[in-house]
């Protein structure tokens, strides 16, 4: 075991860690923003929407994330240049980077899995509470914002926390499309120093710490949530 390379590459690992966290945060944010409507339309939406949401969840959950990522980066990425005039638009610099594709792919994945979780969550809220809210004269949107969504999120929070940790463990896949997050930096070190185990072990240790920090953070958040005591 030799660790002489660690000091040299430490700044790059820090950058990689920051990139991993960005990737995770953005994917969860956009993914949940999509997952909530996807779960909701499956419970109350008109059937075409409900059907489309179901199909989306099935497809996302039925295919490997790696394939989705490659489809979006190599597949979509190879189609964009054919759109005339796209090189002059504002979004072109974004489309040439790999990071947005990774965020997009991971967000879709989070939306697919969590859409399914949210479906169960919305369905699990007792009808009586929703009827009570409606009887109080709340508009449908207010019912959703003040009663339905908070109750649903509260019920499935432990499940969601587990899913977000799975998302963290999926982020190294981004390294295969040249996003150099922690794992990607690890592969660079391996190529440049010809050491096989040490960089991998170091990366594994970083993920171990990240997972524990997240688990503890989620547990603290869970404890702060109001629980029914009666």
């Amino acid at each position, binding site marked *: 075991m030799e660790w002489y390379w660690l000091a040299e590459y430490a700044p790059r690992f820090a950058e990689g860690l920051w990139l991993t966290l960005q990737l995770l945060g953005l994917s969860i944010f956009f993914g949940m923003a999509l997952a909530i409507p996807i779960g909701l339309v499956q419970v109350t939406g008109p059937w075409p929407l409900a059907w489309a949401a179901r199909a989306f969840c099935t497809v996302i959950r039925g295919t490997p994330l790696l394939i989705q990522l490659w489809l979006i980066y190599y597949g979509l990425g190879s189609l964009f240049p054919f759109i005339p005039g796209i090189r002059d638009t504002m979004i072109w610099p974004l489309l040439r980077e790999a990071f947005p594709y990774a965020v997009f792919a991971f967000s879709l994945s989070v939306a697919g899995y969590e859409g399914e979780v949210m479906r169960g969550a919305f369905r699990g809220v007792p009808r009586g509470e929703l009827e009570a809210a409606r009887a109080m004269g709340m508009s449908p949107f207010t019912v959703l914002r003040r009663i339905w969504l908070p109750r649903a999120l509260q019920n499935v929070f432990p499940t969601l926390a587990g899913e977000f940790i799975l998302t963290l463990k999926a982020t190294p896949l981004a390294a295969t499309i040249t996003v150099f997050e922690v794992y990607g930096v690890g592969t660079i070190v391996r190529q440049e120093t010809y050491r096989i185990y040490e960089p991998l072990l170091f990366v*594994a240790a970083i993920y171990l710490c990240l997972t524990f920090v997240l688990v503890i953070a989620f547990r603290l958040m869970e404890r702060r949530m109001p629980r029914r005591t009666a």
Partner: protein
Amino acid sequence: MGLFRTIQIAVGAYALGLLIGLFGALGKLHGGPVLRWGLEIYTTVIRAIPELVLILLLYYAGTDLLNVLRESLGMERTDINGLWAGIYVIGLVQGAYSTEVFRGAFQAVPHGQVEAGRAMGLRPFTVLRRITLPIMLPYALPGLSNLWLITTKDTALLAVVGFSELALETKQAAGATREYFMFYMVAGALYLALTLVSTLGFTLLERRLRRGQPVQT
């Protein structure tokens, strides 16, 4: 061809995972303190590290270990056959997850059933085979079917260590023909078909295993 190898690895790794899981769960529930601690570390560490990192680590460590072993026995160094390497690596990872699934299912078996079996004079192994396993399986099945779906999708990660299964063959074909979009769509459809068929199979299996259980309404 790629799909066939994917299925081969998935089945092999799943079987290995189940085997590890079964004994892991038994060890966690009935083993001594050393065994319990070892298994606890195994499941915690494996489940906290990304599969991709684990696959690389286990792949290199496994090859090295095997070669050291072979050299000490006076044999030549070899490369592990890709198929077996894939099965072993993913099987070890799956083992940690299925240990937890089985542990939960074992704990769901009413204690009286086991005691009744013992009172009938059955040997511990017979109790396991004829009482605990059949009662526990329906509880474990939902978790196990999830694990199977994860296993099939995890095989795609082997593409990263250069093992040619469905994902890597797709990448090569796509790169050669420049038809990226089309090839990835087809690969996605193949994986989807695989998972849909398996889901159907597990639904039927669960219906069969649950026969004789009170119907939940």
